[in-house]
């Protein structure tokens, strides 16, 4: 019950029973030991598939084919690092691992930097046609990736980007920007106007205001955006499959090809998949402290 009429909440106050929202009651109970134990249990259940993948990546292909990963609990001796050795020895996989970085890092950086600059302009610089242009950006949010495939295959072919890493990066950047601009613009617009005006009075140009006030204050939003964009590009298969070639395929495509060439090539797939999962996790934990809110507390009032 979060929706109450004015009269109801008024009488509730009069009766001395302050109403709290569902969310605040849940938060209040988080201190309760039982709930914490329950949460720990749920987290553990969520972790099981991850653990399963990790263990599978440490077993030989024949073991994996014959028995489930949980058998290591009784026979730990079957664990081996040979899969990772095979993985690194596999040229296609090793190259694709590098390719994944070459695709993901620029796609993320480009989107974050361009979107942050554009979002600052949309939020705080008064230029003619600003609102119409922003509406255009919002409209681009609903354009599906699939409608871009055919025209861009032709375009990339004409200008020699087809099958190259820059081509894939450009596609990801273009499709990542509308949402990124939209997200950051709304966040930047929430920064108190007084702060920007104070910086302006202090002698800031648009560029210094962006770099020294907006960018640090936008930290949480920029970090979230970077993580989402990184995950999206890292896990992408469709675009890489269509626009890439043998030399530019990322890990996702390489893993997929393991299944096609050798049937159930579980040792490579499991270790490759785990590796492919590990990097986003590292990125997430590296940035997660910027999620911590309260960065704005104390600036005004």
């Amino acid at each position, binding site marked *: 019950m979060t929706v109450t009429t004015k009269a109801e909440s008024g009488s509730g106050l009069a009766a001395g029973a302050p109403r709290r929202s569902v969310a605040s009651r849940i938060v209040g109970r988080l201190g309760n030991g039982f709930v914490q134990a329950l949460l720990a249990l749920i987290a553990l259940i969520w972790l099981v598939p991850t653990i399963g993948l990790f263990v599978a990546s440490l077993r030989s292909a024949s073991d994996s084919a014959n028995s489930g990963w949980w058998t290591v609990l009784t026979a730990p001796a079957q664990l081996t690092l040979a899969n990772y050795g095979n993985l690194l020895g596999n040229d296609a996989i090793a190259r694709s691992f590098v390719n994944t970085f070459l695709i993901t890092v620029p796609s993320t950086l480009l989107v974050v930097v361009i979107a942050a600059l554009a979002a600052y302009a949309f939020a705080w610089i008064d230029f003619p046609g600003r609102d119409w242009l922003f509406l255009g950006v919002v409209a681009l949010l609903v354009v599906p990736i699939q409608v871009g495939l055919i025209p861009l295959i032709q375009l990339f072919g004409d200008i020699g980007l087809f099958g190259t890493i820059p081509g894939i990066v450009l596609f990801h950047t273009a499709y990542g920007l509308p949402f990124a601009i939209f997200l950051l613009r709304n966040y930047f617009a929430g920064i*108190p106007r*007084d702060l920007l*005006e104070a910086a302006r009075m*202090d*002698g800031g140009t648009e560029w210094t205001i962006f770099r020294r006030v907006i960018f640090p*204050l936008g930290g949480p939003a920029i970090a979230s955006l970077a993580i989402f964009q990184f995950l999206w590009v890292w896990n992408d298969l469709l675009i890489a499959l269509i626009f890439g070639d043998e030399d530019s395929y990322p890990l996702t495509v390489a893993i997929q090809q393991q299944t096609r060439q050798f049937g159930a090539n579980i040792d490579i797939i499991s270790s490759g998949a785990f590796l492919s999962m590990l990097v986003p996790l590292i990125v997430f934990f590296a940035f997660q402290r910027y999620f911590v809110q*309260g960065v704005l*507390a*104390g*600036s005004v009032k």
Partner: protein
Amino acid sequence: MAEVVLAGVGKVYPDGTRAVTDLNLHIGDGEFLVLVGPSGCGKTTALRMVAGLEDISEGEIRIGDRVVNRVPARDRDVAMVFQSYALYPHLSVRENIGFGLSLRKVPKDEIRRKVEDVAERLGLADHLDRKPRNLSGGQRQRVAMGRAIVREPQAFLMDEPLSNLDAKLRVQMRAEIARIQRDLGVTTIYVTHDQTEAMTLGDRVAVMKKGVLQQVAPPQELYDRPANLFVAGFIGSPAMNMLIGRLTGEGDALRVEFRGGQSLRVEPETLTARPALRSYLDRPVVVGIRPEDMEDAELAPGPEDARLTCTADLVEAMGSDVLVHFSVDADLVVTDDTRELARDVGADDPQPAAQGGAPMVARFSPRTRVKVGDPVIAQVDTARMHFFDPETGASIWDSAQPSPRKESE
């Protein structure tokens, strides 16, 4: 440091709203000018035009000998203290204060020295490495001040810098701002809606209403010789009582009669000081009586024809004095000025007293024994009565008196 001159300055927003009209102000080098008025009177807009945060639609603003109409805020060399303080939350106190200097590429050790000087002056020396969120309201206010001071600008602009503080702290910071401004001698424009701040801080006070300057004068002159009903009602707390009366009598023995039959004498010295008053003979005129110009007749007996008899509706003992509310059977003053004053306290129009008639407040000495419901005789210091034209609201002085809307220098 420099003088700041506003010449015929106006502000019209793109949607046609007019915020400021033909504003003329000359703020001398080192002067403390307070812009005061109810919310929406254009005082903040005027300040923001000086700051460069708002385009100037009409007229010209000069800082020193430079016309700054087209100069961006960062190049105007003025510092502003915001109502919200606008401290950078991601920077420490030290970085907040030094931010303007570092943007101007001042050498690091010089920034350090200047910031520490200012922090010392403001009592922030122990807090330099804290973040704004770990400071109290008063400390944040000081950091905001420090950020302005450290730049040694041509002028300080302050936009209601004390309104987020609680009452006690506000009085303390008010004194501190006055002291700092006097020490540094920096030209200051200070915007507030609080007339106490205006009166205590300003070398001169400019009262604005609906984007139009009403009067600029030193605080005491504003109080003693308000140019019109609006200034009279806005300056002074509790506000001046205003009644419509009829000027009657002959020669020097004039009096004002109110609707219910009560009357007050008009002193001959008043007629000397306000020669134009005679032309209102047998016509309605607005009489203004400040609460502090009335006293309980039992404590300070005076002439019979300088008294108002009525019943106390409400008695508020303030310790140092007693505010007695009552009503006098007289017509309410309803002009543009009084409507605007009523709006400032949340009413649409001037409200009559509960029993009808004009509501009055008198400030009696604490020795008065008046209780709610008691009959009250208020002895009026008739020599201090104010007179205004009921149509224009302008103060009645000499007909040769220059227009009250012009700036008095």
